């Protein structure tokens, strides 16, 4: 168990290090970023000052070491445009993103797992087909198209919901729906398949033979056993889909989160912000993946006991 945890931790650190290195060298590949940001309007002296400030005159290996050093002293630099520490800019965006992520994940679990079970239990009837058609829709409709339709209907035609910002609970409805749609589709399909695998097992027949009510058979014997596999996918899917989904959703609904920051930084070529935000999100994804791996190892009795011996 401990050795397993250590291996997961080591792989996590290694992956993050590779990403940090790639991000650093990719930014340097494109020449001086100052040319894009400041353009023609800068005098020679100002330019020299900026170059010295951002240490762009030093050899690339020194810059790389300084970049790695930031992880020790916490000086990740200033935004080209807002002239504020990037760590501060990203930090104030974390909570709104987390709020949206939590509400979308909660919505996903509440909707996807019951529907997945329904689709598995009634797979031969129209109920199962209807649920699967819904899952397909969630898969095939791009989230920005869904967002556009939602905004048109609920904000402009019916005038029920606000579009911009995160002020009130009503502001959460459309972003949550948009972000959750793809996750619901993915988890629903997966829950169905995991349940179908379990429903054919011998112990399910035994449970029925004991005379247990069907609901207890499905929920207690079925879902508990399918739960471990569902858990692992929920974690991985949530991390990946949420990271790419929140970029789009936050940008559409002007949600003051890290995805919105990322898109703006990318469009304005604010490299220090872009770098730091990409690394933050990458770290979050890696952490979630590692947590899922650990939880998986812990939740599966076979893995938990086998490594103790």
């Amino acid at each position, binding site marked *: 168990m401990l050795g397993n945890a250590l291996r997961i931790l080591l792989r996590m650190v290694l992956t993050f290090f590779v*990403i940090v290195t790639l991000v650093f060298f*990719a930014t340097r*590949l494109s020449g001086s970023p100052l040319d894009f940001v400041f353009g023609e309007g800068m005098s020679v002296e100002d330019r020299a000052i900026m170059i010295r400030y951002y240490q762009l005159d030093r050899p690339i290996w020194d810059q790389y070491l300084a970049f790695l050093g930031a992880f020790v002293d916490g000086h990740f630099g200033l935004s080209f445009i807002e002239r504020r520490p990037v760590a501060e800019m990203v930090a104030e965006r974390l909570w709104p993103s987390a709020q949206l992520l939590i509400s979308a994940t909660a919505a996903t679990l509440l909707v996807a797992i019951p529907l997945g079970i329904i689709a598995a239990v009634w797979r031969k009837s129209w109920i199962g087909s209807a649920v699967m058609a819904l899952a397909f829709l969630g898969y095939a409709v*791009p989230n920005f198209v869904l967002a556009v339709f939602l905004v048109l209907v609920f904000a402009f035609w019916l005038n029920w919901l606000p579009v911009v910002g995160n002020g009130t609970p009503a502001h959460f409805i459309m972003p949550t729906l948009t972000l959750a749609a793809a996750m619901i589709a993915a988890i629903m399909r997966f829950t169905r398949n995991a349940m179908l695998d379990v429903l054919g097992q011998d112990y399910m027949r035994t449970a029925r033979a004991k005379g247990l009510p069907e609901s207890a058979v499905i929920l207690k014997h079925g879902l508990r056993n399918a739960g471990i596999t569902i858990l692992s996918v929920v974690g991985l899917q949530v991390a990946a889909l949420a*990271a*790419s989904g929140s970029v789009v959703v936050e940008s559409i609904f002007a949600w003051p989160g890290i995805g919105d920051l990322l898109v703006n930084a990318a*469009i304005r070529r604010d490299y220090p912000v*872009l770098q730091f935000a990409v690394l933050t999100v990458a770290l979050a*994804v890696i952490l979630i993946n590692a947590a899922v791996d650990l939880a998986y190892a812990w939740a599966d009795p076979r893995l938990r006991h086998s490594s103790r011996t």
Partner: protein
Amino acid sequence: MTTVPTVTPPWLHSLWSEAHWVQKTALVLGLTLTVAAVLAPAIAPFEPNAQSLIARLRPPLGFESASAGHLLGTDELGRDLLARCLHGLRLTLTLAVLGASLGLLIGGILGVLAGVAGGRTDAVITAAVDTQIAVPFTLVALFMLSVFGTSMVVMVLVLGFAGWEQYARILRGEVKRLMQLPFIEAARAAGASPWRIARVHVLPNVVSPVVVQFTLSLSNIILLESTLSFLGLGVQPPTATLGAMVGVGRDYMPTAPWIVLAPALLILAVTFSVQILGDWLRDRADVRLRVR
């Protein structure tokens, strides 16, 4: 639909008759969209970038104050929406096919290399695949487009880079599996060179999973390209893909919703038919599923 012409080969006939109505719809829709995209320059009623200041923001035909000749209406610069949609569809599909092909090329070479060479080469390529899977690609794409600028070439590179790891993973596994089989061993014993083994014995056996993956990745790539274009990081104006049209059009949603609706519905049609056809192909290629 009941009268299938006798000139069709029998396998096509059976393919069509065993298809679900959803699959038939997807097939017809997909073919129509492809033909429309290919013929876009010929059938578009206007130049896609021709502006007309007196015919700005006109609704589709049939609505009040519609402008004659503009079937789907006009956008904020008075450009014909139908013409822009057709050209946008053409560009979207072109970028997707180019991106998926590039991904196939990169991933195919690396995957076969990993499978054939093994050892350290295999370890490095597998590690690269794992890293790529661990990082959400939208982040990578945002990053690449910001650093290298938003040209057509960069876009194709980004899209190609988006799917390579799937091909690499699949091909590595398939090649590794095949290399164990007796007929490869026989070929090796008969003195065939590694190149000949790869070309004559391995490649024909991996065509089917690769074709399936190509179709499945096509819909992911279309989604990725539309999303990036929607965010304003795609091909630059006045040239537009469908995603970019939705992105620009959302500023006019309250007053001129058709600017957004036309390309958005078109994107839906494209992703719908590509997804259904991809799933269909996958089910047919999977022998275990076909027997059932």
